[in-house]
């Protein structure tokens, strides 16, 4: 079905890449997963940004229409306080996307610095990597719950609590790239020519980390959205004043047997979003990083 569509679009997007300066995203868009996942994500993002302007206030209480099924009151029914589930799900999309993006960017930034240092400055390697090993052995969800319960649940603490357990994976990845690159002949040549360390980093090491990091960022984004929802569902996430997919579902638990849609709609939205992110991630991995693709596929 998509066979006929994808090459056309890709063909229209770019001529055959001949040199490195062809924009990476053009190559990536040739992949069907990246294209379709990207389209779905763009739609979700669009709906998240402009959607809430067109629907009733998600915090609007209406005792007259409590627990109504979908269709009878609003597209997705109402919850136990008479709030419109559809507008709540739309607002929740904002939270999910913001958390996913913020966590991915921050975790990559911190992990990149730590990984570069561990890979390049020999004496720090053992220390940083042991700390990362330790951090990796702490169950992410428990660590996040503990951090949030101690410092109070806000958007910031939730993002921080999800970022910290993600850092070790990025650090390990960057470090392994650095260790491979520094053995390459062109880096040895640069060192022999007296190039300064920070220039070697910027010119030779950093460009090699970009492709795997973009791939890793999409996976982190997807898992951050899931973790945020899990925290919200367990009552340890973003406070209920701001509707998030997690806390909508958390509030829907009490009446689940009566009104399952309060859990199903945000759950579906979450699953579709994360699926789109993961499909984009798989596509990017296949196009940007053939080496990883071989072992991970």
């Amino acid at each position, binding site marked *: 079905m998509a066979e006929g569509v994808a090459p056309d679009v890709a063909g229209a997007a770019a001529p055959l890449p001949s040199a490195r300066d062809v924009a990476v995203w053009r190559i990536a868009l040739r992949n069907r997963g990246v294209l379709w996942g990207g389209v779905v994500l763009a739609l979700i993002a669009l709906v998240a940004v402009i959607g809430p302007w067109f629907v009733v206030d998600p915090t609007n209480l209406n005792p007259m229409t409590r627990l109504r099924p979908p269709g009878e009151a609003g597209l997705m029914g109402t919850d136990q306080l008479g709030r419109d589930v559809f507008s709540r799900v739309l607002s929740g999309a904002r939270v999910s996307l913001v958390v996913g993006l913020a966590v991915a960017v921050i975790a990559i930034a911190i992990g990149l610095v730590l990984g570069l240092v561990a890979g390049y400055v020999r004496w720090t390697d053992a220390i940083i990597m042991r700390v990362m090993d330790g951090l990796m052995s702490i169950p992410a969800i428990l660590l996040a*719950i503990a951090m949030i319960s101690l410092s109070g649940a806000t958007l910031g603490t939730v993002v921080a609590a999800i970022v910290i357990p993600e850092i070790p994976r990025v650090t390990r990845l960057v470090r392994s790239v650095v260790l491979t690159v520094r053995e390459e002949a062109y880096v040895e040549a640069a060192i022999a020519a007296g190039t300064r360390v920070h220039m070697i980093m910027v010119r030779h090491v950093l460009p090699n980390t970009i492709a795997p990091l973009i791939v890793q960022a999409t996976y982190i984004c997807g898992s951050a959205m899931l973790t945020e929802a899990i925290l919200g*569902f367990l009552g340890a996430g973003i406070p209920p004043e701001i509707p998030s997919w997690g806390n909508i579902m958390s509030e829907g638990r009490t009446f689940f047997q009566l009104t399952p849609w309060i859990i*199903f709609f945000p759950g579906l939205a*979450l*699953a579709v979003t994360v699926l789109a992110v993961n499909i984009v991630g798989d596509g990017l991995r296949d196009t940007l990083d053939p080496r990883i693709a071989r072992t991970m596929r």
Partner: protein
Amino acid sequence: MLVYILKRVAMTIPVMGVVALFVFALLRLSPGDPAAVIAGDFATAEDVARIREQLGLSEPLVVQFGTWVWSLMQGDLGTSIFSGKPVTELIAQRIEPTMLLALTTILFSVAVAVPLGTLAAFKAGSLIDRFVMLFSVGGFSVPVFVLGYVLIYVFSLNLRWLPVQGYRSPFEHGLGPFLSHITLPTLTLSVIFIALIARMTRASVIEVLEEDYVRTARAKGQSELKVLMRHAVRNAAVPIVTVIGIGIALLIGGVVVTESVYNIPGLGRLVLDAVLARDYPIIQGLILFFSFVYILLNLLIDLTYTFLDPRIRY
């Protein structure tokens, strides 16, 4: 060999130390007075002072850490603020459902995922292969608790095949009630695990199938089933077992959520109740407990490599 085992065991000590340091720092470095945070919004000054005393928060940090690690090494994970019981005792009371759920999940996942991944690798590119890959991407995308509610909705509320929630101990109520109550939680928790293991199995079997000895085996006329069983799966065992070990971390997080969805009185529920009550020693103790379980299981897995693959010699 013995030297390697000792080395590998010794390597876990700094990791455990880092974990302990993190868990310790978590409470002390959090903004505000930890004693006041734990005491909650309605606490009196005496309550805060009592909790501060109980946690030894007025001592210098180094002394606090020292005494805490010393008691950890004697197997003392601390004492619950509200019930006054040792955390180890609380863990012992609640560990059975959690351990059995983890066990059924691992058994079920391996039993499903390894054949599925092998089949996908054997028929790489086929419809079955695509289905397995689609399932594994989907498995990573569906939130555990949403899946749990979908299963409850279909199998418990509509079809009425299985009980909605709860837990029955096999030692008290027998195997039948235990199985009927553990089936849905196991299915729920298994999906992500199956996705993970099937993906890894497929990747490593594909790799092994390209080896010369597989071609030799085929050339001498061995049946495809034997090629798969005797050569491919056996040689792919190490990465598969490794990914199971890494997956334990996923499993621990999933157990907390699954126990919450199905109302299972295990360690996950103990954590959540402790969070609601701000009973920090319990949270701290359980994080340490789960981390050490993870570290020890992965140590065990590392040590079994020699049995799985005689080529690995230390």
